[in-house]
């Protein structure tokens, strides 16, 4: 009973075919929402778009959005692939905390905190443990048939406890310039975190679209029964996406802890899984699996981060912040919903006089037989 996604777009009077093609593009609505938010900011803060060079790197609100959005982009990236397989990964927030905690703990207790080898070990440790977490999630889902929401819930809850155990409930501060680079450093005047996120997005989209991985993931998510009958090894794919998701979360965790040079087992990545799911949905990937859009997810994550920044610059009182966020998100979801748009335009159309459509077709009838 699902109507084709572009219900009613076929005969909207008075709209050029070019415009229709534009609004029909899957990235149109997330991009439009992002543009609206950014323009709204410019209207309120005139130098919002201003980017200048300071201390040898770019400096401005846009740069902030990118930098703080980078971890969310990464988490959402992995989440997109998981959701495309009809799954969901609730454990990413805990993975963020564990990765940051492991890396900082390692660096803080190392003999030579500043050295490159310490850094490499710290990163390898964090990513390795995250991969193990992803493997566990993937095996629970693919081999034991546990529902993804349940399988990953286990680590969502327990994982934060693990992170607290690693940090002993404390906030671990580290002073390693090399580690600071990951989330807070700059390279070629740009925040390194942004470059890292961009690189990972590029690699992921190359791997999914240049190999058959993307198509097979969409197939498994779109119709698991048919995918089995067509000979796709779904188990391997599922494990792969959960591992990828956890690794993305780990890199995000490194970024978040590196940015403030400290690991906070309690608060790092708290609720980021929900923001990531929202980013994926805003980006136009359905929670029911199947077709996914990495570009849309990046836009979705940027929408969420821009919204946060907007709240800070706008001076929305903290008591009403959540209401404000909720309203924007509701509007975004409504605008994205084809059903809602169709209903809106139908209302507009019925208000206008009914077009005398089809009248000319009567003469085209051949062999009309009146009973």
């Amino acid at each position, binding site marked *: *009973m699902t*109507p*084709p*996604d*572009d*219900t*009613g*777009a*076929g*005969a909207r009077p008075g709209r050029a075919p070019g415009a229709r093609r534009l609004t*029909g593009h899957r990235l149109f609505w997330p991009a439009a929402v992002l543009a609206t938010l950014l323009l709204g900011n410019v209207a309120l803060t005139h130098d919002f778009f201003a980017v200048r060079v300071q201390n040898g790197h770019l400096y401005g609100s846009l740069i902030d959005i990118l930098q703080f959005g980078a971890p969310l982009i990464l988490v959402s990236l992995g989440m997109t692939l998981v959701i495309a397989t009809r799954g969901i990964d609730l454990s990413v927030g805990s993975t963020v905390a564990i990765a940051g905690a492991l890396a900082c703990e390692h660096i803080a207790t190392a003999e030579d905190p500043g050295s490159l080898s310490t850094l490499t070990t710290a990163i390898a440790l964090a990513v390795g443990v995250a991969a193990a977490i992803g493997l566990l999630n993937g095996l629970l889902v693919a081999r034991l048939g546990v529902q993804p929401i349940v399988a990953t819930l286990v680590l969502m809850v327990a994982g934060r406890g693990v992170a607290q155990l690693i940090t002993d409930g404390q906030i671990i501060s580290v002073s390693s310039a090399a580690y600071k680079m990951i989330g807070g450093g700059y390279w070629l005047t740009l925040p390194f975190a942004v470059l890292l996120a961009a690189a990972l997005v590029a690699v992921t989209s190359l791997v999914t679209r*240049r*190999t*058959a*991985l993307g*198509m*097979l993931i*969409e*197939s498994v998510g*779109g*119709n698991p*029964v*048919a*995918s*089995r*009958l*067509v*000979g*796709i*090894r779904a188990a391997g*794919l599922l494990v792969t996406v959960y591992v990828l998701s956890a690794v993305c979360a780990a890199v995000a965790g490194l970024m978040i802890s590196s940015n403030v040079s400290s690991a906070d087992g309690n608060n790092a990545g708290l609720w980021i899984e929900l923001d990531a799911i929202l980013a994926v949905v805003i980006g136009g990937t359905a929670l029911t699996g*199947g*077709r996914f859009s990495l570009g849309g997810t990046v836009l979705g994550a940027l929408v969420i981060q821009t919204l946060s920044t907007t709240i800070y610059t706008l001076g929305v009182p903290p008591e009403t912040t959540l209401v404000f966020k909720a309203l924007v998100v509701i509007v975004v979801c409504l605008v994205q919903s084809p059903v809602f748009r*169709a*209903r809106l335009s*139908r209302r507009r159309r*019925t208000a206008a006089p009914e*077009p005398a*459509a*089809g*009248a*000319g*077709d*009567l003469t*085209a*009838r*051949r*062999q*009309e*037989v009146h*009973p």
Partner: protein
Amino acid sequence: MTAPPTPRTPTPAGRPVLEARGIRKAFPGVLALDGVDLRLFPGEVHALMGENGAGKSTLIKVLTGVHPPDAGTVSVDGGPRRFAQPLEAQHAGISTVYQEVNLCPNLSVAENILVGREPRRFGLVHWKALHRRAARLITELELDLDVRMPLSAHSLAVQQLVAIVRAVDVQAKVLVLDEPTSSLDRDEVAQLFALVRRLRDRGVAILFVTHFLDQVFDLCDRVTVLRNGRLEGEYRIDELTPVTLVHHMVGSELSTLDELAETSRPGTAAAPETAGTPFLSARGLTRAGSIEPYDLDIHRGEVIGLAGLLGSGRTEAARLLFGADHADGGELRIHGERAVLRSPRTAIAHKIAFCSENRKAEGLIGELTVRENIVLALQAARGWTRPLSRARQDEIAARWTEVLDIRPADPEAQVRNLSGGNQQKVLLARWLLTDPELLILDEPTRGIDIGAKTEIQRLVGRLAAEGTAVLFISAELEEVLRLSHRVGVLRDHRLVATLPNDTTLTPDRILGAIATGATS
């Protein structure tokens, strides 16, 4: 299709109960309907005919409020209506039974019939009344069903009947039946027709969509024919013959007509070489609860038909040969060597292909494109690390779209927007691309139009001639006889006979085997 026009009630006069004018409907990449008209009068059975992709299903969805039309009007009792959703159409007295059963398998028969309008007492569901009312409706239909059983306990055919009972219970002025008979056996069809006639006599207007010509001549009063999304014409059945009706449907494609006229079965074609090691050999292959142990040899170039009633174990037998289900007893040899099919993947590696009867649920990935659906099996076999290049995919998709005449000829169209016959062709293309040595076709022609059906039948013959083994499952005995070298007959989850298709094999003999289990 040679059924003589039966005497019928006088064609209804007066105002149409349902009228559509100038309906236009487009989906991304497909203009499904372009200025179509339809009139339904009270007390008539009206056939809606057309080839696959002609727009029959879309028109029904517009009439029943599933899709709003892009242009045109739908009137009920003379008043223009705009249905935003199916429920509104239902309230206006238009009930629909779709081709694919849309019920809840885990609810009981009674709940399925009355869901949404359960009798209530003190605000709670009055279960006793619910079961009583459902049972009464079932009896009216002369069916024998326990209404408390979950729907999933019944065969697809019975589920279809339940869907009809559900639609009938709504006080309908118009009953739309979309391919209701494609999964019913003869007795069930007769049962259904009896009910349809009773409803007609009560003044209900029935819109009947089917591919079976003889059913149209048996049951209907008038017919509206669509072609390529346009109205071809509206006719009285008694003014038509099967041949002229087909002519209206397919237009100038007279070669197809010739083939249809040829009613003799070509089962006497040169038999393949059956000496030596068969491609596949099953001995005592079984799965508890789904199919009794059976033996079957399939040679290269051989077409084996599987006949039997719905639920007789035809599909279940085939699924074991594809590893879709695990056999829990017996032995399977491929090229004479023992093989254990753990999964479809293993079977595919042995060059076996399987087109499921359930295209939507088990075959296609609806939101992927035609191109992606076609290359999927080949790509799955290669693994994700060895992708087919986009150029290669485009070339494959273009070639198969042309070879099988898939319409629209747009490899980038979403496959769920295609009509049933074209979807079937996409599935065929997918498997032919893997160059299978055994092709298992489960009801490949069900619910698709005559043109596509003939093409698929011809394709089966050609594949066999080229050395492919084919296992052909169909409820239509004529079709099985026309194509097969040997016919396996199933009855109550048991392969009761494997009959060579010589001149002595007739539909009656097969029916006898199905009915009694005896082969004489």
